[in-house]
């Protein structure tokens, strides 16, 4: 594999302008993330302290092995929902190392609305457990929640992928032989009681932890029976009498230490063998990414330059370098792991679509995980391309992506519009992890284009009824549509709705991918099999 030769001029005005722009975006992202993670009303912090509770990130710090990374998912979930009052959707999820084992962490954030389950909280939790299932990762639940957020119960209770799915996922994990530990650090009421109930092991803190299907007020209302929290579902009752809880602990610190000791007992999974060599830092500086990405979403850039900042030694083996050049395909290593990369360098044509499908087949044959770097406005349209079968060729690419047996990882680098999102393994296509860069945009088509289309429809409607419109009138119709579109195609909206597994500062991508690939290798890679390729 030879090193990608960078053709960038890092001193050029263009590069510097891009860099300034993207650094600012990265700083904004970090600040919003920091706020979402740490800024809380003082009274909520005080309340937790008076209850002798630790904050969720303090708990996670005690849980994880020192000197190890934590890849947090969806830190900005719900940032554009619920009036912004539920940062992170009131929970923290991610992959961390506990007692040397890669684990999914699922922790309630009681400093946000008492850790209540909003619809997006449920979605984020279900997603974390789906990640655990797909990657066969043990789960540590840090339970501390006020229960479902009643006013929005219709959006979190009844449907297939709502709250029930959390418990169904727990059962499936158990069925798969993947272990779960729950640490009961607050009240686990009603549905929440099933989190420890369905965990293989659980630990409960005396005094603050409790498990019951209904708390004392509900029980009193239902049957008149009076109970204290401890009598009804406290630590000592459950660890000595009912056997619902396994390990009593006198403090949160002790409970978490016990959980670590439990995880230390888990058999370590056999990793799927994949090509690996000693890691090497990229030859080029990762900070160059800020200068590579253009300020304008419609502007092109050379995806090879991005690849050069992500892969070991900046070395890349390019497949079909002369054919289908709007799609870069090739092999590289990230943190030592061999991967196949598909990256957009323009619109997808017939040849690039075929190249993509073919390369995905090669990766599957070789058991090589695949990384998709998205910057795609869509497939080429027009008569010539239809005659050449662009629909068929796009279908072949989508078939290859969908049936791929090797783990896939997707990064939204810039634009992700239309069916190009699909062909490049968007959310619906089961990538093990999908991340967005701050400036990325995802929607069915570009905002300007969409606004024009919608305004156009309205203008013609009004024209039919005899009205002609001034430019100001047109703008008045167009601008709100444009604004709404822009809002809903931004990375912040994507991440708010949990259409991704989190936003990343571009310079963090290499570490995030390394951790993701390692986690993905706990699952065996099946033999390649595809549906029918419309040839």
């Amino acid at each position, binding site marked *: 594999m030879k090193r990608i030769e960078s053709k960038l001029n890092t001193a050029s005005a263009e590069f510097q302008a891009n860099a300034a722009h993207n650094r600012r975006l990265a700083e904004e992202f970090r600040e919003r993330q920091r706020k979402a993670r740490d800024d809380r009303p003082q009274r909520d912090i005080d309340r937790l302290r008076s209850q002798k509770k630790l904050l969720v990130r303090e708990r996670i710090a005690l849980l994880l*092995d*020192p*000197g*190890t*990374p*934590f*890849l*947090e998912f969806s*830190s900005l979930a719900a940032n554009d929902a619920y009036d912004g009052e539920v940062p992170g959707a009131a929970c923290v999820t991610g992959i961390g*190392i506990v*007692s*040397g*084992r*890669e684990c999914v962490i699922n922790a309630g954030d009681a400093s946000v609305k008492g850790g209540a389950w909003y619809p997006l909280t449920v979605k984020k939790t279900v997603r974390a457990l789906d990640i655990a299932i797909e990657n066969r990762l043990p789960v540590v639940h840090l339970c501390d929640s006020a229960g479902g957020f009643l006013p929005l119960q219709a959006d979190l209770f009844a449907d297939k992928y709502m709250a029930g799915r959390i418990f169904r996922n727990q059962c499936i994990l158990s069925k798969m032989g993947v272990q779960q530990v729950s640490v009961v650090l607050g009240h686990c009421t009603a549905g929440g009681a099933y989190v420890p109930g369905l965990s293989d092991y659980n630990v409960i803190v005396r005094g603050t932890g409790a498990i019951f299907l209904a708390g004392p007020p509900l029980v009193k209302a239902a049957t008149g029976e009076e109970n204290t929290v401890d009598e009804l579902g406290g630590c000592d009752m459950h660890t000595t009498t009912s056997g619902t809880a396994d390990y009593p602990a006198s403090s949160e610190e002790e409970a978490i230490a016990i959980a670590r000791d439990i995880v*230390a007992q888990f058999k*370590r999974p056999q990793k799927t063998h994949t090509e690996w060599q000693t*890691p090497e830092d990229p030859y080029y500086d990762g900070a160059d990414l800020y200068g590579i990405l253009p300020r304008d979403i419609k502007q092109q850039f050379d995806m090879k330059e991005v690849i050069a900042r992500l892969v070991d030694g900046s070395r890349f083996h390019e497949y079909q370098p002369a054919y289908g050049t709007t799609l870069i395909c090739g092999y590289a290593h990230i*943190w*030592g792991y061999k991967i196949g990369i598909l990256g957009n360098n323009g619109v997808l044509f017939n040849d690039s679509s075929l190249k993509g499908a073919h390369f995905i087949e090669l990766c599957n044959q070789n058991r090589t995980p695949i990384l998709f770097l998205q910057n795609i406005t869509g497939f080429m349209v027009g008569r010539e391309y239809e005659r050449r079968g662009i629909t068929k060729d796009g279908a072949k690419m989508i078939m290859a992506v969908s049936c791929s047996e090797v783990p896939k990882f997707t990064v939204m680098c810039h634009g992700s519009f239309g069916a190009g999102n699909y062909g490049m393994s968007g959310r619906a296509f089961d990538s093990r992890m999908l991340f967005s860069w701050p400036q990325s945009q995802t929607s069915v088509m570009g905002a300007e284009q969409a606004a024009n289309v919608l305004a156009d429809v309205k203008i013609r409607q009004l024209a039919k009824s005899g009205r002609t419109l001034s430019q100001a009138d047109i703008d008045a119709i167009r601008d709100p549509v444009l604004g709404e579109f822009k809002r809903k195609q931004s990375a912040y909206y994507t991440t708010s709705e949990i259409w991704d597994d*989190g936003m*990343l*500062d571009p310079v*963090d991508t290499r*570490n*995030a991918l*390394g*951790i993701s690939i*390692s986690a993905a290798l706990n699952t065996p890679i099946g033999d390649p099999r595809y549906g029918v390729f419309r040839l």
Partner: protein
Amino acid sequence: MTDVSRWPFSTVLVANRGEIAVRVLRTVQKLGLKGAVVFHAADRNAPAVRMADHAIEITGSTPVAAYLDGAQILAAAKSCGAGAIHPGYGFLSENTGFARAVESAGLVFIGPKPEQIELMGDKVRARNFVEKGGFPVAPSAIEDDGPATFVERSRTVGTPLLIKPSAGGGGKGMRIVRDLSVLEAEIERARSEGQRYFGDGRLYCERYIENPRHIEVQVLGDSHGNVVHVFERECSVQRRFQKIVEETPSPALTPELRAQICETAAGIARSAGYRGAGTVEFIFGPSGEFYFLEMNTRLQVEHPVTEEITGKDLVLEQLRIAAGEPLGYAQGDVSAQGHAIEFRIYAEDPGRGYTPTTGPILALRPPQGDGIRWDSGVVQGGEVTAAFDPMIAKLIVRGTNRNDAIARAEKALAETVLLGCKTNTAFLRRLVVHPAFVAGDVHTGFLDANPQIAADPPMPNGTLQALLAAASLSTRPMRDAADCVPDLHAAIGEWRN
């Protein structure tokens, strides 16, 4: 090489343990004699037991009691055909009854005649004997039969005065009185302690020298009437009247004073017709006055420093004398070169009032090299228990002069590795570089007057970190927890997105 073929014994039984048993056996075996040793089960794996040609187990209600059981020891000697018994120091070494029993049994007691043990063992008799011989003694009062008059006579000695049990030794039961108003009460207390420790409540008291120095002289006398001195040792660095550091020559003596003290000691030994190795102890005042303290009719713990500067093997001399040989050299033939210091390595915690410590000896690396001698009764794998005296080894350092010896000592103490049981080596290292010690400005109250030497100094931050690092990497749960982190995550380190 000494010809032992005509000696009246070919096997020597060492009635002792620990470092002195090893020390004596070493010379015994070097001469081509057989060495035997008695041992209590607690010493089963001791180096002396493994060294000896014969090892006979003895029993007792306590380990110490076994080594005090003269009858058993005598029987052990007979059982292995030992013709002589070397008592070492402590235990039965100054027990007149035992010495007599050994001689009655037809064995050779390696030491003085029993009557000499008896004379010098009784502090009152010894003092009177020495005084009558015209040798210097401190003003004192002896308790005859009159406890009442004793108090009055003590008053005349003047303050400060020291009350001592007549039958005592080793610093036990002694009390200093500076104020006559408490004299009577202190006498009562000393009497009950004397009764408790030695079975004898008789007392005597003598003038106490403030900030005295403890200087003793090694003497050798054969059975033909020849007596020589083998120079002095200074043993002023003490705690609770027990010696910690001994050296020779004494930095306090001019050549004239040295000659005076050593001649006085030889004179005392001569006047008693002393046979064997012995030590005459003096108390030495700041203005050069010295008084007879006591005579120890045995080999001393600190004998090695004398050996180092004179080249003499004192145990060999003891054996030769016991075998009936004449000394074979005159006072003028005895010469000394250089300077030697001995450090007693105690299993104790100087920072906590010198409380004895115990523990397994997990690692032991004695210092080595030119001018370094390590006399010890413990080995790696052994255990220090509360059963015996806390002295576990002696470090003896020789140099061309005192400063040279001090430099060597500091280095050797730093190199001494003894892990598993706390010892006083760090304290000794601080002591040996203390300006007062380096200047030779010590006295028996020196350590009490400078408690900061014994105190644990504050730990530098770098040391704490290094200790925590070493300990963390040596502790399985911590090591295992770190080792099981996968390579990738260890390489990425503490990263957050």
